Structures are given as C-alpha cells and as structure tokens.
C-alpha cells in the first residue's frame, strides 16, 4: 500500500432513498481511500449501491448527514464544505464521469460531445481557448481511434465507439480522477475488453487515477485494487483477483447503426502494478 495521503477518501458514507413511505438504505457507512494514480474497482451486485457511491464521490449526489458520518475529502478538502458553484467546478475540472449508457448528447457531433466538457468548464473563456481545446479534443479522439469520426453523430457510432467518445469527453479537462460507472456494462466482452484496454493504455501513459464500478469480477480484475460493496458497506478490500474466464452473458447492442471499432485494441500492459 502506498504511504502517500489518498487523493480521495470517503468515511462512513450513508445514503438512504425514499420510495414512497419506505426508506431504503443503500449505503451504510462505506469507507474508501483512493490514491493518486491508482485504479480501484468497486465490485458489487446490482442494487448494492456502487453507482450511488460513485455519484457521491463525484459530487453529483450528496450523502446523508448522520451523527456518525464523517466526510468525503478530495485532496484534503471536504466535499460537503463546497458551495454549489464549487461542486460544479469540481465536477467540471477535477473529475470526469464515464457512464454505462455513454450519455452522449445526440444532437452534437463526436467532436462537440468532447468539446462540450471544456465549454462547461471554461465558460466565456472557451472562445479564446477554442483552437487549443479543439486540438486537444481531436487528439484525444485520435488516441481512441476516432480521428476519422469527428463530425459523426453518436447515433452513427457503435457502442464501443460511443464509450470511447464518452471517455474522451471525461478526459477533456484533464481531470485528477476518472469515475467510470460500469463502462463495459452495455458492451459485449470483446468491445468491453477494448474499452478496458483503452483505459489501461491511458493509465500507462498518464497515470490517470481511476475509480470504476462494476458487477463483473473479470472487469474488476483489470484494476489495481478491488473493493466489494455489499449491504451498503465495503466488506472486502484488497488487490485485484485473477481475471475470470470470459463470460457469455454480455451482449452487443442491436445491430444496424452499431459498428465495431476498426482500431485493434491497445496492447495490455501485463506489468501493471498491484498494490
């Protein structure tokens, strides 16, 4: 384990949802530390609260305030102490979200879907930095094998390509932390692996800190460290287990407008570190 202070630490995180008159506790005192440059997988069954934890870590959602709850700190700063505006800035500049269903804006081109992250972050300054942002976005998309798809709309891309665009969008503002919610959950095994390879390739190049949520042990195994979430608590933490054999459960989205990437998946770095 590293001895440097964690970039992100969550202590005793609680979250309860209300379904009519019924209170459904999702997180019941979850703890998590993430160190800089680390890839952490949060493994859990469906409904275990892993996405909720991810949203709370990304300041998209807020934890319950309970007498025992402590705080989520990013680089030592309490997220709960941030104003609404600071939380927006945190989401825009310090973290990048990648979602299971890509969540691209359908009216925008691939390039604009990536640039929109910079537009939000820069506000009126975007105009001055537009050429720089455009070059950066194009370079990111090129890295993910989408340099020839800049003007295409999301509907014209395959699932894997869409997810690559989503990753490029998440990276446009060079965030400290990448939060991926089931990034391969909507893809077949092969495409999913190509996404994971792309993330691994990115980490090899930039030491990008990554927190990834998944229900798939095989996907989790690609992380440096795996924490399991059950009954709203982190019940197990340790180094990533050996990859599981390929499952047959994943599926490719309906054919038609889906296209597989033409770019060969990046080479996996077998010498990735475990902590």
């Amino acid at each position: 384990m590293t001895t440097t202070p964690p970039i992100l630490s969550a202590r005793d995180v609680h979250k309860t949802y209300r379904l009519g008159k019924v209170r459904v506790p999702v997180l019941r005192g979850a703890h998590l530390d993430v160190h800089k440059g680390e890839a952490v997988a949060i493994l859990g069954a469906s409904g275990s609260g892993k996405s909720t934890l991810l949203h709370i870590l990304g300041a998209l959602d807020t934890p319950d305030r309970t007498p025992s709850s402590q705080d989520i700190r990013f680089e030592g700063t309490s997220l709960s102490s941030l104003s609404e505006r600071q939380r927006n800035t945190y989401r825009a500049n310090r973290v990048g979200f990648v979602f299971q269903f890509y969540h691209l804006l359908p009216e925008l081109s691939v390039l604009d879907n990536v640039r929109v992250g910079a537009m939000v972050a820069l506000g009126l300054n975007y105009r001055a930095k537009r050429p720089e942002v455009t070059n950066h976005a194009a370079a990111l998309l090129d890295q993910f094998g989408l340099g020839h798809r800049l003007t295409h709309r999301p509907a014209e891309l395959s699932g894997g390509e869409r997810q690559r665009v989503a990753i490029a969008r998440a990276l446009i503002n060079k965030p400290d932390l990448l939060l991926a919610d089931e990034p391969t959950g909507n893809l077949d095994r092969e495409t999913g692996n190509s996404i994971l390879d792309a993330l691994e390739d990115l980490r090899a190049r930039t030491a990008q800190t990554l927190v990834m949520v998944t229900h798939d042990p095989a996907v989790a195994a690609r992380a440096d460290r795996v924490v399991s979430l059950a009954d709203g608590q982190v019940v197990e933490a340790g180094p990533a287990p050996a990859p599981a054999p390929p499952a047959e459960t994943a599926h490719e989205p309906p054919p038609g407008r889906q296209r597989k990437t033409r770019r060969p998946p990046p080479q996996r770095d077998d010498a990735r570190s475990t902590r």
Partner: protein
Amino acid sequence: MYQRLLTRRYLTSKVMPLLAALAVVLCTAMVLISWSVMGGFLKNLMESGRTLIGDVSINWPNAGFAHYEDLIQRLEAHPEIDAASPMIETAGMLALPGDRLVRVIVRGIDGPSYAAVTTYEDTLYWQPLEEPLPKDDARRDWRLENHTRWQRTFNNGLTLTEPDPATGEPRPAVVIGIETSGYNFRQPAGFIIPGIPLVPGADGVMGQLPIFLPDEKVTLHVLPIDSSGRGIEMVTRILPVANEFRSGLYEIDKQTVLVNLRALQSMLNMDEARRVIEDPTEDLSAADPFALGGDEADPNFEPIQRVEIDPARVTDIVVLGRQDDARLTQQYVLDVYTEFAAAHPDVPRADAIFIKTWEDQNATMIAAVKKETALVLFIFSFISLTAVFLVLAIFWAMVSEKTRDVGILRAIGASRTGIAWLWLRYGLAIGVVGSIFGLALAYTIVYNINTIHDWMGVALGISIWDPAVYYFTEIPSRVNHLHAAIIGLGGMLASTLGALWPALRAARMNPVRALRFE
C-alpha cells in the same frame, strides 16, 4: 458557450421547436396586421377629419362676429400662419329633387380662400380623373371621360357659383356632401354612380327619377338668428348645385351643404347692412333749438337721420398653420385674436371666443376610433398570450424529452443557472426566429393586403372590406415600424416567458435522477 451550441442544434434538429416558432410567427403576424389595418383606418379617419376644417378654427356661433376681414389680415400677417378663411355654420333644411327633404349643416364658405386653408379642392368629387381607381379595372368611373365637362363642374365647385344660363353671370351655388342626397351609390370598385332611386310621386306611386345633382337645383331653408339668439323668420332660396364633395368622413358627407359665403350671409342677415337711425331728440339740446328739428306737423319736417353700417359677420375663421403642431398654431391664433379683440370692442373677448384645433373638434370621433383600435389590439394581444402557453407546453415536453441531457450536462459540471439559461436562451431564440418571420409575414400581408383581398374575392368569393360599405376604397396598408418593433420584442418576450417555467424545472432537476431517466 455550450448553451449557444445546444440552442443551435436543438433548433435545427427537432420538429417541436419549429411548432413553437410557428405559434410565435402566427401571433406576431396577427397582432401586427390587425394593428396596422386598424391604425391605418384611424389615420385615414383623422386625416379625413382634418380635410374641411384646417388646423384651428375660431368660432362664435349664432350671431357671429364682425370685422373678420381685419382678423384674417392680421392672421395671415403672422409668420407662423399660412392662411385663413371665413366661414358660417348654421343648421338648415335642404329640399332635394324628388321631394326629398333632409336636415343639414349649412356651411357658407369663400371657395378660393377656403381651398387655401383646407384640401377642399381635392374633396370636390366631380372633377376630371386621369387614372381609374385601383379596383376599377373596367374603367366605369364617369370621371374618366368627358374631362371638359368635369373641369367646368370642378371650377363651379371651387367658386361655389354657376353661370346664369341667361346672362352668363356667376350666380351663387351650393356644393353638397356626396352622401347627403342619397342619390349616389358607391360601387365595389370605390367610385360613385348617381342613382335613379324609386321615389313616391304626387299620386303615391313609386317612380324612377334620373337625378344627377350638379345638373339640378335645390331649395335651402335657413333660419336667421338675431344677436340675442332668437330666430327671425325662415329664409328660403333656390340654388343650383355646383358640385358634390367627398371628405372621407361619412358624418360630414352625409349632412353638410357648402354654400357661397355671400349668399348665406345674405340669407342669414349677416352681410353688411346700412342702418338709418332717426332720432328726433338728437341734438335738441344744441344752442339754437330753432335751427334744428322742427315741428312734426310741418309737411316739410325732416327728422334728424344718422346712417350706421353693420359690418358683415361670420361664425368661424378656419386657419392653416405653417407647423404640423396644431396646438402651437392654436396659441398663435389666440395671440392674434387678443390683439384683434383689443382693437374692436364690438367683437367677443379673447377669453370668451372658442379657438379649437381640428383634433378638439373631432375629439369624440377620434377617441371612439382610438378606443376601438385599442380594444382590437387588446383582444388580439390577449389571444396572442396563447403563444406563451403554447411555448410553455412545447418546452415542457421538450425538457421532459431532454431530461437525460440535463443530467449529462450537470454531470460534466454545468450549473443550475447554466441549465436554466440554456432553456431560456432556447425560448428566446425561438422568439427571435418566430418574431422575425412573423414580422416578415405581416409586412408582406399588409403591403399586399389589397391584392390578397382582391384575390380572395375572385377565387373564393370572400369580400371582407367592401368599399360600398366601408368608407375607404382600399384597406389601409401601412405598417408603423415602431409598432412592428414593439410587437417583435413582445413576441420574443412572450416566447422567453413561455420557456421560463420549463427552464426552472430543468434547473431544479436532480442530476442523478435525470441521468437515469428513460
């Protein structure tokens, strides 16, 4: 910046915003068209109301006031006053050919000077016409032919005289409002054809009588009034009809007869009169009582006589100012009249005389039409509020449809204010697009409204603006650019307002729920 990009993309990629824009287009166009037509109608009416009364009038009803020629000289000497003309206004009865008797307002005017103050020349209906009226495609207007005759009729109307058939000397005549007789019929093309009405004969049987008034004579009855306001004795005079006039104001044209000023002065005992005063008591107190006076029983007795001149009088002076502002002219007229009254003790005092602008005189009519215009505008504007609710409904549906987009934008750091601005800006963009196209549509329709109306008449048999019913031949087709700007801004504001609630709803969305929205 992302708001600008998304607004552009949303505008061009969905049907619903086009529907919202269409609603704004139609409402904007509807309000501007109605305002333009009603405003044009009001303007026409006001211009017509000014036609025969100049800018300002000085009025002393009934007995009138003397020395008016001096007043006119003083007025015309003022640098801000262009011209002035005397006028008499009184009530009377007019017996028309065909035994028709109508109650009329009789105005005695001096044709040439009256034409200098008003647009009297233009109102004379029977005069040569070079080009047919816009809708008179068949050239059925009498005035297009036989110009020599119409020129003669026009000159007669201008001077309110007609040559005596026997001597050729000019004799006083009248000019009658085109609607007064009831013998003229407005055609759909806007011109007038003298009628051949069915009138009851002496035997009680209805018969037809071809009547063209400028070929006829009429009998005018007026009641002279003494200085105390009491009627003296009805005066009747048969006068030839020199022409007919059309001012554009139905009420004026329906009940007004213009008479040669001198003739009317004579009929009303308002012309210059020499008065011989006999006063046997005068100068009896002189030094030599025997040198003056005498014995009334003496057949050679001659009472002391004195001749006094009663100057001619008029009830009105109409004045044309050099400036457009009638109020200013009114002030100048008052200044001149004050000096005039000081010089003539026998005229009404300056603080008693009525000095009114043309707007004062038509105040009731103008106020009524203004109110009507405002009412129509209010109704259409109120109807146009539906655009706000239409935009609201469409935006509500769009925000629902774009819930996930809101979640995505929030996830990448967009603020609530930024999201609200995205939708407000979107509403504003729809308002701008809708207003621009709406104004363009309105301008196109208003400027071509008569052509469109004619086409509707031919193709669909629909005639909304019938010149035989409405007093103006054509539908007013002027657009006030200021009104257009106000309506355009209103359209933009309405659309933005319609987007406000959905924008606030989008801003308040929970981003996590928005992301999970399906």
